[in-house]
């Protein structure tokens, strides 16, 4: 299994290409099988992952453009491991969730397979250019998914999504090129190898600028206020599966980027930018939560809630200590599962009624009790109830950030309040009260396909909420490694003070 990462990346793409040969009837089974296999491979990966080890594992390194230092360099650590597993898992769920009568089923499924390739690629690429390739490439299938299977304003939404993120990441590309140049100046060799880059200790003003460049790329993806406006459109218009993938995985690419690139490469800049980033994050948390509360379309509401949660993730990351970063990664995973599930749930009623307006519903709890139950669980996970998956990450993120700033944590912590306000409000409008529309009385409860997608998510939400250790432990180790790199590299006094010193020898048992 030396090339398991390559297999993991390219298996769906190759299967996707072959999928063109398959008859339309069989394509659904085919796609489900492929994604399940892919998920199994990722489980094997998890199984083979040596969590006692700190560094990068499963490394593959083939030079592609040696003159320019671009290589096919893959690797995995605890941080990316679960994002990969999440990716394969959510893609599988997403594919299962697609209703039978979707138009152009084959195209949709195969596009999703290609998308999976790019997403896995983003999380395992350790070469900046390779990362960038997957990063950008992921836009294309998503563009198609939103644009082809979306709602009324799908074209506007898809183009906006594409151009916005594209523009941001191009600035990031400049950052990468500058970084490579600085590396070249320092060593005389061109390289985009991230691990090599980690060795560079840059002057603070360089760090600040480069941090800014990377920040734009990542922040748009996250999406941070005020770069978030593409997201409501994208979600509002995307088909259910598109929203699921978008919320569950694509957004994580931004925050992952922060952890993988911004923090270890620019520790001092990270420290320097804590306050501005935190302020933006707090605005994200509160502002978008309030905007979410004002929504009439339940899908938009969930979309805005995603932004709000990502604000918490950002706070966790910029805590710059293991608690916060581990928490933010866990929150990424939990948000992936929960928001994915919420979008699936919204999809359920959309499929039945072809509207997402909350005013069209009401009293669904009596018509679709099981649906209401699962929705309720997911909602509670979303507002971060302990023993659900949402709490662990949120708590850790805030704990971490509390070390940085008390006041800002309190402000950011209002997430637990404002989140409850809009979520419970939405739940009340949709599920409680009398059944206002007669036609809603006939709505059927969940069917087998929907159970198949939602039950695993529900179980995960509870299991990982009760016992997050299998995930937290490897993540925590890798995060500690990152933090210790940051501490070592920090130049300024402030940096050294803010980033805790981790004794890694304790971690190797």
């Amino acid at each position, binding site marked *: 299994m030396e090339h398991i990462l390559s297999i993991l990346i390219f298996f769906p793409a190759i299967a996707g290409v072959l999928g063109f040969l398959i008859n339309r009837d069989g394509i659904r089974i085919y796609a489900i099988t492929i994604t399940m296999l892919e998920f199994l491979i990722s489980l094997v990966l998890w199984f083979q992952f040596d969590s006692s080890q700190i560094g990068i594992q499963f490394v593959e390194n083939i030079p*592609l*453009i*040696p*003159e*320019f230092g*671009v290589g096919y360099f893959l690797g995995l650590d605890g941080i990316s491991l679960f994002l990969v597993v999440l990716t394969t898992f959510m893609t599988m769920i997403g594919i299962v969730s697609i209703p039978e009568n979707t138009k152009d089923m084959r195209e949709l499924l195969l596009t999703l397979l290609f998308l999976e390739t790019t997403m896995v690629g983003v999380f395992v690429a350790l070469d900046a*250019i390779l990362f*960038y*390739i997957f990063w*950008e*490439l992921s*836009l*294309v299938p998503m*563009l*198609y998914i939103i*644009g*082809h299977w979306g709602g009324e304003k*799908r*074209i506007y939404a*898809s*183009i906006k999504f*594409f*151009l916005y993120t*594209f*523009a941001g990441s*191009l*600035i990031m*590309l*400049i950052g990468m*090129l*500058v970084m*490579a*140049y600085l590396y*070249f100046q320092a060593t005389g060799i061109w390289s985009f190898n991230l691990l090599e880059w980690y060795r560079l200790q840059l002057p603070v003003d360089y760090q600040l600028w480069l941090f800014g460049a990377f920040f734009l790329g990542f922040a748009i993806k996250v999406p941070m206020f005020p770069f978030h406006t593409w997201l409501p459109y994208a979600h509002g218009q995307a088909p259910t599966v598109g929203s699921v993938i978008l919320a569950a995985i694509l957004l994580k690419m931004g925050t992952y980027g922060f952890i993988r690139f911004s923090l270890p490469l620019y520790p001092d800049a990270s420290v320097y930018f804590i306050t501005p980033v935190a302020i933006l994050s707090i605005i994200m948390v509160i502002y978008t939560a309030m905007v979410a509360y004002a929504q009439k379309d339940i899908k938009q509401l969930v979309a805005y809630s995603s932004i709000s949660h990502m604000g918490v993730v950002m706070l966790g990351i910029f805590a710059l200590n293991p608690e916060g970063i581990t928490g933010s990664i866990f929150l990424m995973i939990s948000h992936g599962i929960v928001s994915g599930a919420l979008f699936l749930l919204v999809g359920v009623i959309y499929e039945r009624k072809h509207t997402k307006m909350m005013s069209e519903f009401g009293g669904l709890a009596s018509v679709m009790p099981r649906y209401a139950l699962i929705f309720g669980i997911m909602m509670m996970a979303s507002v971060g109830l302990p023993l659900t998956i949402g709490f662990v990450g949120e708590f850790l993120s805030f704990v971490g950030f509390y070390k940085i700033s008390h006041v800002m944590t309190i402000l950011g912590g209002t997430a637990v309040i404002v989140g409850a306000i809009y979520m419970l409000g939405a739940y009340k409008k949709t599920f409680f009260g009398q059944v206002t529309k007669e036609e809603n009385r006939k709505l059927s409860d969940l069917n087998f396909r929907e159970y198949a997608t939602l039950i695993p998510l529900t179980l995960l939400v509870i299991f990982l909420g009760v016992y997050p250790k299998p995930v937290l432990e490897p993540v925590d180790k890798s995060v500690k490694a990152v933090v210790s790199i940051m501490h070592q590299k920090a130049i300024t006094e402030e940096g050294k003070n803010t980033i805790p010193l981790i004794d890694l020898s304790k971690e190797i048992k």
Partner: protein
Amino acid sequence: MLEKITIPLEALNLPTLIPMLIAVAGGLTILVVDLFKKDLDKSLYIVLSILFLTMDLGAVFDLELNQRGFFNVMLIDGIAVISQIVMIIASGLFILFAFSSQRFHEYRYPEFFALFLFMTAGFQFMVASDNLILIFVGLETASLSLYTMMVLHNKDKSFEAAIKYFTMGAMAAGFYAFSAMVFYGLTGSVELYKIFEVLHMRGFEPMILVLVASIAMLVSFGFKLAVVPFHTWGPDVYEGSSAALAGYISVVPKVAGFVVVIRIFEGLINLGIDWIEYILYGIVVLTMTLANIWALVQNDVKRMLAYSSISHAGFVMAAIMIGTTQANSGIFLYWILFAFTNLGAFAMLWVSHKRDAKYHERFDHPFEKFSGMVRLMPVGAVMMGLFMITLAGVPPFSIFWGKVYLISSAVNAGYIVLAIIMVLNSAIAAYYYLKLVVHMFLKEPITGRDGSVYMANASTSLKVVLGIAAFFTIASIFFVSPILDFTSFYMAMSGF
């Protein structure tokens, strides 16, 4: 009386001439064949052209580097060789467009193919010399052939385009001559290396005249490369020419233009004339940005591609302005990658060539024509989409690498702001490329239409061309390294 001078044949270094001679001979052969037997099928001429181009290419590969020939008129340095290689290969691929399944007026002329070869020879002379006279003559040979070939399409629009092109070309020729005159007056020479030498010796005095000469040269080549504000012919010429020729115009003449611009302006910049650098900076920014903005509002794919080519040329001009070895090798990397993608894009337009006013009264390739193409002809749509997102610079497809390399060279040379402008322009550009993708993939087809319209002009050769273009575009990641080796080698050899 003058003494007799004897020159040993070896000193003439005749091999430097062989490639061009082959092309010229090819043109003559075609003319002669036509004399003997009229109305032969175009396929003969196409194959003959390809044959001669192949031989030409072989001869170019055979050239020894860094030599001068024929009383120093010929200059075979790395840049000359590599540009010839690029031009010949591109020409060979574009001439394959003539294998269309529809019949076109121009292909009934054997002269078309002869002119094509003469044009190639003209461009070859243009790049393989640093003598302003030979450059001028080569340039005019090529340009005059090109005008004629455009006209042979025999449409109102192509006449109009040719006249516009020709008139502006004549004016540009005037500027070229004027510039050369000033250089000559300043230095008593028309050979670039000598010009720089003398200028340097004179300490650039009088500076203003050096600048005047440079400006006139800039106008002349600004026209040739279609940089703002000398670009105005571009869109009209693309629209007026057949897609086959438009694709050619978007690639090959520009290579020749780049070479000359590199020779002249790099020399001047390297000598330390900052002003040229500033002006080029401004022109580059204007060209990239304005062309992009105009491309945004186009309704016709070909016309949009015209503006996009202008913008891409602006990108490459940026590299010329930067002028480091990395940037210079990036020029060719970029242009090779661009050539293949553009080849594919124009091939798609060519394949779908079917004049039908029901889409648009003026345009042959309005965006609406491609609406819903993915339903009618999925493979074609995927290919076109591929070329479009490649042009937009989505990795890992070909142009991305060129962009990365050029932006990197900008960064390395300290032009961070320029790099940012470059990427922002890429972002703007993405919009209009996407517009086509959106039409093809996301819109519903116009009712009552089938996919045959997209294959109206297809033939096996064209499909092969498409295949080659697509292959190169997709697999470029594996070619970047060799091409880079190759371009860097030649660039380093010629000292740029």
